């Protein structure tokens, strides 16, 4: 079973000693809170655990930037 997407992000923040009290609409990557390596890790998680095809021509990667848009993305795939 896949984890909730919020806990994926919180785990990533905690692993990197970052404050994990993140609001649903806070920018995760464009704010610099997490870096592009973390984004790569998230992409792999989304593909592996959540079954998303991020190579799709219209996959909009900006949806990875907040918990609420991630939830929408994951929900759409389910």
């Amino acid at each position: 079973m896949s984890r909730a997407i919020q806990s994926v992000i919180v785990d990533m923040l905690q692993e990197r000693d970052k404050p994990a009290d993140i609001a649903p609409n806070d920018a995760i990557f464009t704010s610099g809170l997490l870096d592009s390596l973390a984004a790569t890790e998230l992409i792999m998680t989304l593909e592996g655990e959540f079954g998303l095809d991020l190579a799709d021509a219209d996959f909009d990667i900006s949806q990875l930037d907040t918990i609420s848009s991630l939830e929408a993305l994951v929900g759409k795939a389910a």
Partner: protein
Amino acid sequence: MATNDNIVQSFFETAQAEPDLLAISAGNQEISYGDLAAHAGRLAAHLQPKLTSGRVGILASRSIAAYVGIVGAAWAGATYVPLNMKWPAERLIQLMGDLELDALVIDSNGAKLLTDEVRAAAPSTIISGDPIHPIEGYVDVARLSEPALQAPVPRQGADLAYIVFTSGSTGMPKGVMVSCDSLARYLDESQKWTQLTAADRIAEAHDVTFDLSVHNMFLAWRAGSSLHLMTALDMMAPQAFVRKRAITVWMSVPTIVNNMRRAGSLKPGLFDTLRLSIFCGEPLAMPTVEAWQEAAPQSVIENIYGPTECTVVCMRQRLTQPPLVTRERGILSIGDAYENFDIRICDPSGAQVPTNEIGEIVLGSDQLADGYFNRPDLTDAAFRMVDGRRWYFTGDLGYRDENDKFHHMGRLDNQVKMKGNRIELEEVETHLRRACGTELAVVVAWPVIDGSAQGLVGFSTNMTLSEKEVRAEMAKALPEYMVPGRIEFRAEMPRNINDKIDRKALIAELEGNAQAPSMVTPVAAGQDVTA
């Protein structure tokens, strides 16, 4: 009437003629030429009386605020100096001190870097360039009370347009100073082949600290094109960005294309709106460029070459059928020189070598930069008078073929390109030695794929430290992408015939280990794809 050599004069003229054209789009925020000019004019009125050094820092990138800052600083008659948002506090403090900035323009990400200690080193005038979202604790450009300066302050061609920092072998980055004249010559030459119009929608993939941003913004502003700012996230999977925004002009390092190919997202016909694609900063491997051509069938593809010291770019080669390949490396050639350049291929004594022989690429032009900020020693070493003319010695190796086309063959020194970022390995080594408390420490770029370094590996003889400790210490002084992803400890270093540490032997060791079946190819850490 005397002409104004201010670098935003053409922006001003476009804004006057076509104020409603879209200038910049960033996420869901957009600003027209007219509005950008209005904010810049107001910012300029605020900045102009404060100019002493004449330098205004930009601690902002990939945001409308960054461009309000650049246009406003230039409008006021200042030299704009982008500060890298990836620099750690120690470096920001030191460089802000050296630069004696008169003011700083920030965006919300820049504000986060202004901790108490950094702010103490910053100029007293700090303005948020974001016209829509105020940043707590700072005056923002929309609330400045001075009446706007109606037109850009007149400047001379010899005045400095900008200072852009690039890696320096001394351990600190060096600031390349470019005059208004050099920039104007660059734009005149580049306009001939880019032929931008107001209908063009340009994807801006670069931070303003990278001088390819100079190419995009100033050419766009002459033509009335729009700039579409990509986030670091967009760069990791740019397909939706380009498609949704119907982008017509693309420019990036080839690494982004290779990432897309690996992810399986670079599909034929993907980019049917692109008419011009430009690659730069790294060798452009033929499979890379061919895959892009399939994905963007309507697009002309240009490979461009140029160090920051020549003002952005000085050579280019279009992808033709058949392509002009640098056969030894399987990459597209760097082609022809800009018309305002003389190119020499020289041996170590500075004498020219015959056709088809490899030597150092040496550039002569009135487009060259003025030199390095506060470093006349480094300037004199790289910019030399030969035969009554000033030449820039690039440190790049190359040759001229029998058809007068140029080919790039690598570096003379230890400069590497990592995802388009220029890195002097000596700069990283200076900090590795400091962190390890030993002179016996070196850094190599590894692995190198398609001519682009994927990561850095440090080697140290100080066996008492851990990798984590060394990396943490280095991260205090270096941006994250320059901190080696891996540190190896050795009781002894291999030596070459001159008794120097043998980098090649260390790389061979890494290659050998990687080929052993039990080893997984290491993921290079500490880098960023934002190039």
